[in-house]
């Protein structure tokens, strides 16, 4: 009983009540989380009450929704009414939104049960979850390593089987990279596929909410209940949402797979290269036609990303000024000090770096040289993908150049940390969907992720390929050692 598919089958069959599903998740969180620190807050009573209502309604024969009783975790960047939402920043300590994000409304309407808030890098800025102001989440496969980021809590909670599904957000790789580093499946949907209403903005033109789970099939089960047009989000697409499960045939014969040569360059860890090449060979063996393609502007992606993302961030984070919500510095003598002290005192250093960088690239005299230039390069990067997808159905790349690194290994060098986003940021700049699935392990037993990319709004093909690969491999079913013990414990009862 660990995947979304397991839970939903048992819940529908009636062999598992919603109440029991919630209790199971709470039990696993209690057992695994003290060592991993993925959850910031768990709301046992409220989740049990919602589960009890669902069980009662189901007993009365009412329609309880397609995900009824499914517990899930929420990254601390998505608003839930009256539940503290801090984005793991001291500046939002105590902030309780008076409204639900659209994805929360939709998942709740489908019967899913939010069970707690998940740790992340402050305001989703980071690749290791070390920039959380509150706690350090650890990688379930090796607790001396980072879980990836910024959705580190979301990835660790799924990897450790605490909950079958979590929500993350991805601005430059923040779902896919931690999914890869924790050995789970994570989808960054097409920009506009899932409503951003209620997602605290980091970089509005890049941000997208997506699910993390144990398999492509699980993602396919959940995605229809997140996706679709939302009149409250101007940038959400008014397109129909397909039945993603219908395409999970396991058959990818004739599928055209592109391998961008620019993603297999110096800096790519040999173990990662080996695992990804093996995965490509596996896809070929399953009947896919593999060919090399070129995305010539890849080398400019990180520079472009850090201009666009920080510019938007400097704007989106201007509102945290100690006036209308969140923390306000004490002992200030005037309004200016309320602003400057609050922001200096309660933003972490990484956030401050990005605000200053973003302010710089938008400031008088620099806009054209940096921001406008970056938007032009963004066009070139997008065109690279458009051209590639004229000849192939999916692109296959590594998700991260290395497996999970040790806690503290890179915190001293911000630029090095940024460069690790090399394989993920282009996807956000182009707005296309990306899926990370487990494709092997390093010698030290750390998971390695495979990234699949497709045309805008073609999540169906990503999930189809991911599912076919997972039908032929078992990387996604392997558990970190400590939670194997936990599951053995349950089996004995």
């Amino acid at each position, binding site marked *: 009983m660990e995947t979304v598919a397991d839970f939903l089958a048992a819940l529908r069959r009636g062999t598992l009540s919603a109440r029991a599903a919630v209790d199971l998740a709470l039990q696993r969180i209690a057992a695994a989380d003290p060592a991993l620190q993925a959850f910031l807050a768990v709301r046992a009573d409220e989740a049990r009450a919602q589960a009890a209502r669902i069980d009662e309604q189901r007993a009365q024969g009412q329609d309880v929704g397609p995900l009824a009783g499914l517990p899930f975790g929420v990254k601390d960047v*998505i*608003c839930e009414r009256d539940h503290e*939402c801090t*984005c793991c920043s001291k500046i*939002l300590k105590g*902030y309780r*939104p*008076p*409204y639900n*994000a659209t994805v929360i409304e939709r998942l709740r309407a489908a019967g899913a049960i939010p069970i707690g808030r998940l740790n992340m890098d402050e305001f989703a800025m980071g690749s290791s979850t070390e920039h959380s102001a509150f706690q350090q989440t650890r990688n379930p496969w090796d607790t001396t390593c980072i879980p990836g980021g910024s959705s580190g809590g979301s990835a660790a909670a799924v990897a450790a089987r605490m909950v079958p599904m979590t929500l993350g957000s991805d601005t430059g790789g923040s779902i896919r990279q931690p999914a890869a580093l924790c050995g789970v499946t994570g989808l960054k949907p097409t920009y506009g596929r899932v409503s*951003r*209403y*209620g*997602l*605290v*903005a980091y*970089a*509005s*033109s890049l941000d997208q909410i997506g699910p993390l789970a144990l398999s492509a099939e699980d993602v396919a089960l959940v995605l229809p209940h997140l996706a679709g047009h939302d*009149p*409250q*989000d*101007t*940038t959400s697409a008014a397109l129909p949402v397909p039945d993603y499960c219908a395409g999970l045939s396991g058959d990818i014969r004739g599928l055209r797979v592109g391998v961008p040569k620019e993603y297999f360059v110096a800096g790519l860890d040999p173990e990662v290269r080996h695992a990804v090449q093996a995965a490509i060979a596996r896809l070929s063996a399953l009947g896919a036609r593999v060919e090399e393609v070129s995305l010539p502007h890849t080398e400019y992606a990180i520079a472009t990303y850090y201009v666009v993302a920080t*510019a*938007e961030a*400097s*704007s989106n984070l*201007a*509102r945290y*000024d100690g*006036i*209308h*919500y969140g923390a306000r510095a004490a002992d200030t003598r005037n*309004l200016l000090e309320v*602003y400057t002290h609050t922001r200096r005192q309660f933003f972490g250093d990484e956030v401050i770096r990005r605000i200053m960088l973003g*302010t710089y690239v*938008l*400031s*008088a005299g620099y*806009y054209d040289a940096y*921001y406008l230039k970056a938007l032009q390069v963004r066009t070139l990067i997008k065109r690279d993908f458009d051209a590639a997808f004229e000849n192939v159905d999916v692109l296959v790349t590594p998700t991260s150049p290395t497996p999970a690194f040790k806690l503290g290994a890179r915190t001293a060098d911000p630029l090095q940390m940024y460069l690790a986003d090399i394989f993920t940021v282009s996807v956000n700049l182009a707005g296309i969907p990306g899926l990370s699935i487990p494709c092997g392990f390093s010698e030290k037993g750390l998971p390695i992720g495979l990234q699949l990319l497709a045309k805008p709004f073609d999540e169906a093909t990503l999930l189809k390929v991911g599912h076919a690969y997972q039908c032929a491999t078992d990387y996604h079913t392997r558990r970190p050692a400590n939670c194997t013990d936990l599951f053995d414990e349950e089996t004995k009862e």
Partner: protein
Amino acid sequence: MAQYEAVIGLEVHVQLNTATKLFCRCRNHFGDPPNTNVCPVCLGLPGALPVVNQAAVAHAVKTGLLLNCTIAAFSKFDRKHYFYPDLPKAYQISQYDLPVCRAGWLEILLNEQPRRIGITRVHMEEDAGKLMHDEGGGGSVVDLNRTGTPLLEIVSEPELHSPDAAYAYLTTLKQLISYLGVSDCNMEEGSLRCDANVSVRPVGVTTLGTKVEIKNMNSFKGVHKALSYEIERQTKAVSAGQAIVQETRLFDTVQEKTVSMRSKEEAHDYRYFPDPDLAPMTFSAAQVEAVRATLPELPRARKERFAAQFALSDYDATLLTSERAMAEYFEATVQAGASGKAAANWIANNLLTALNAAHLTLAQCRITPAQLADMIALVESNAISSTNAKNDVFPVMFATGASPQAIVDEKGLRQVSDTTQIDAWVRAALEQNPAVMAALTSGKAKAAGTLVGAVMRLSQGKANPALVNARIAELTRAYLPPPPEPA
């Protein structure tokens, strides 16, 4: 000594009277308890997103057409960043380089002469909240009800050269925009706000002098006074060889002068960039023409039509078209059967006087155009006298909204034109006035005139005055001495 001329450009902010705010569905309404017309969007809460109000866009396009602007084929919203407690996102959603409308003009009348003033641009933006100094607490307080109210910023070219011209520009702009019905344009209530850029230069020079921005003017008269003061101040300074400092000055409404803000403002660096949360807007030529077709008849055209169609004086036609509501009231009255001349007289002379005295607007008037037309019909059919109409019927209609027929019936005011009855009153009047009788018999025919008042009193004002005159003449003839025989 050189002669100087002033160069003035005006930036006018107009609040649009949409039902909801520009980017959220909160009510666009004033006078409610603080922070009650607010939602996650206009509070700037993390995660909330703006969605554009289509009515506000339509209003902007209409206003642009009214001001003879070109409507942009492609327009977008940008974020303008600055920190202030009444701006919860710390940026205002505005338009930077691609406003909805640009390059138009407004015709004003200056010394009876028409003059075109260029309109640089008209753009959409959201209003900020209200920051008030808290008298008791020593701090300031913020109400965000106004946050997100749709505004149009209308920027004129620096083509105004006197306070009178600026005043004429503002009154004309207000009249036209009110006509369009997209805003109340009430400067006292803040639905129209105006900042001015002023500089002076020697006559004949074509380059601009150093400009000063004036804020805090809260009436059209205030604008006039502030500009007069500022032009004089700058002219004196320049004449004395002093340099003008580029700065922002506030108009002190008590002392009626402009004062330097003094505070050392950081040079503005608003860091505009396209708002990623909003989609650009496009306007095709066909769409623009469709909107143009919905524009109402404007004051000047309407005035000319009224003068021709209803044979009104220039004065009456101007008065009746000065506000759209009044022009529509007049036309509705005519539509209901009144003659143009009578409707114009009653509206211009009686209705407006009564409204002014009661401090009411036409919208609050309880007399419907149909009722006014009915009353005019009663007068014209001699059912009531115009004196009764004016003194007894109209005031009751105005106060209660009752129909003129009901008032006439209730008060028994229906005019008496029955000759037998009038003759009886005339005879009674003669009997009561022996002096008149004596005068008549002694040949003073004019004495009969003094009977009119007596007859009207006897009839309680109901006798038809024309008939009274005729009957008095007829019945008193008998008392006059026979005319001398022709020699």
